[in-house]
């Protein structure tokens, strides 16, 4: 049974203004729904609510602004529907464009940082291990919990800003240490080290994790020495789009998992899954929807938003060659800023890279409307959402295959052992 403090009840009844009251009531109602006994203070928020899905979200944000609401903790912003810092043309009709702009302004007016990225953790927003935060955007949530060891539930649109304004979150779920213990063990140690050390493996593993774990916490064993931050980012993003994953551990890698036994809290897992090559093949096949075709109309990378390290790799693979198929590089200001300063952005654009900044190709209409179009991607999250959101069928491949295909103007596959 939820109990609010006297202070919280006063704010909910309007003593700090109608905006703060609405935020506190929303947090309290979420707490009641989830069976939380109390609200707890948070140190930061990441806000996914500033993406335009229809006029209702704009009206809600403007209602908060009109009520005098301000965020009371550090609050970064996830992608929006427009690209004030980007170069890709966005095909939003005038009314939608206007409402999206109003929405972005409303969130900035409440004191949120104009970070406009789904990888805030690579744009300087890295809460300390063990701290309670309220983050939205499923990939950011899973990264924050798993890789940083900060504590958040998957806060959806509206609850994220409500938590940021009230400075509080419902005390339930992944805020509580007992719910952060893994109950599922996934053993990948039987797969080749070459596969485990390749970027292209991680979205596939994430898809398996999402489908097998659902919203349970899993520990993955067998990746010690194989991961990078960007691989963990890709793993979490794929897991959070294929399932309800909010936290995973990697034995010997992530902060709450010195080893598998510690992540499991010393308890026998309810299930142990030993991944075999045929599991990998099944998950790999699921990432593509285009079937046997070598047609490719566009290539998209950067879901989650590309890091500088990923841009370095893109440049290295392009090796000065021109692209015949447009390659949409989705990233944030924290990356294009330095690229511009170093004179690298213009060179990449001249070669055929289209930078999508502050937003991405699956959340707002950027890709041209084409009959039977195919999108190639190295992102598990793009592979998951592109068919529904863009109408493009998907061919999944490695970054290297994406670049070679872009150069050749048709699908290029590399020989690779998926075992």
């Amino acid at each position, binding site marked *: 049974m939820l109990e609010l403090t006297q202070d919280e009840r006063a704010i909910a009844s309007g003593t700090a203004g109608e905006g703060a009251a*609405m935020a506190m*009531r*929303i947090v309290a*109602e*979420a707490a009641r*729904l*989830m069976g939380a006994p109390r609200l707890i203070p948070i140190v930061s928020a990441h806000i*996914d*609510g500033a*993406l335009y*899905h*229809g*006029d*209702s*979200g704009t*009206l*809600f944000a403007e*209602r908060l602004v009109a009520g005098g609401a301000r965020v009371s903790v550090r609050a970064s912003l996830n992608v929006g529907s427009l690209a004030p810092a980007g170069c890709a043309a966005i095909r939003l009709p005038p009314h939608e464009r206007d409402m999206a702009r109003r929405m972005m302004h409303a969130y900035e007016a409440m004191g949120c940082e104009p970070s406009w990225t789904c990888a805030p953790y690579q744009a300087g927003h890295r809460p300390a291990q063990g701290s309670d935060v309220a983050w*939205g*955007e*499923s990939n950011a*949530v899973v990264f924050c919990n798993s890789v940083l060891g900060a504590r958040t*539930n*998957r*806060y*959806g*649109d*509206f*609850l*994220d800003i409500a938590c940021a304004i009230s400075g509080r979150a*419902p005390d339930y779920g992944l805020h509580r240490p007992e719910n952060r213990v893994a109950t599922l063990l996934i053993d990948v140690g039987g797969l080749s080290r070459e596969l485990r050390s390749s970027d292209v493996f991680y979205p596939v593993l994430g898809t398996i994790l*999402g489908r097998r774990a*659902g919203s349970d916490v899993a520990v993955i064993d067998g990746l010690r020495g194989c991961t990078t931050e960007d691989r963990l980012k890709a793993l979490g993003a794929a897991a*959070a*789009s*294929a*399932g*309800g994953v909010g936290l995973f551990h990697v034995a010997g890698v992530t902060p709450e998992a010195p080893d598998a036994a510690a992540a499991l809290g010393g308890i026998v897992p309810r299930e142990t899954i030993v991944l075999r090559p045929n599991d990998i093949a099944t998950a790999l096949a*699921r990432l593509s*929807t285009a079937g046997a075709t070598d047609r490719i109309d566009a290539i998209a990378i950067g879901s989650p938003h590309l890091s500088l390290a990923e841009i370095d790799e893109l440049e290295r693979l392009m090796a000065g060659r021109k692209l015949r198929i447009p390659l949409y590089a989705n990233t944030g200001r924290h990356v294009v800023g330095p690229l511009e300063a170093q004179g690298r952005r213009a060179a990449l654009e001249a070669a055929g890279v289209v930078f999508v900044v502050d937003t991405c190709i*699956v959340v707002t209409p950027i890709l041209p409307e084409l009959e039977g179009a195919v999108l190639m991607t190295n992102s598990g999250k793009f592979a*998951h*959402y592109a*068919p*529904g*959101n863009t109408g493009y069928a998907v061919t999944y491949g490695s970054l290297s295959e994406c670049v070679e295909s872009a150069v050749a103007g048709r699908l290029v596959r590399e020989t690779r052992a998926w075992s």
Partner: protein
Amino acid sequence: MELKAELLLPGDAVTGSCLALTAPISFWGGVDPASGTIIDARHPERGQNIAGRILALPGTIGSSSASAVLLELVRAGKAPAALLMDAPDAILLLGLVVAREMGWPTPPAFRLPAADQKALADRNVTISDEGRISIV
């Protein structure tokens, strides 16, 4: 047959045809916010429309923007007539909480185990404001 579902968010009693999904769904990327049509290419109920249906959800997955899609469906008059959820999902239900704060008429939400949802598939169903479910 009568079932009792636990009330999550209040609303008026409803009667309507039940769309019982056979797989979990992500509203964002899975449901068109303007029409209520299921657009997830990999979902077994793809092409069906949730507007005005009593929507039984065996599970919810994916994006944290599900609440925004549900709020937009409410405002557009394309929301389900009621939600039956295997487990309460703070992300999705927030769409209804905010709709109520905005003063818009909101459908009720109830908790009903996935195993009980199956019996309601494509049946005409009445749900009282307290969560008593009967097949008409």
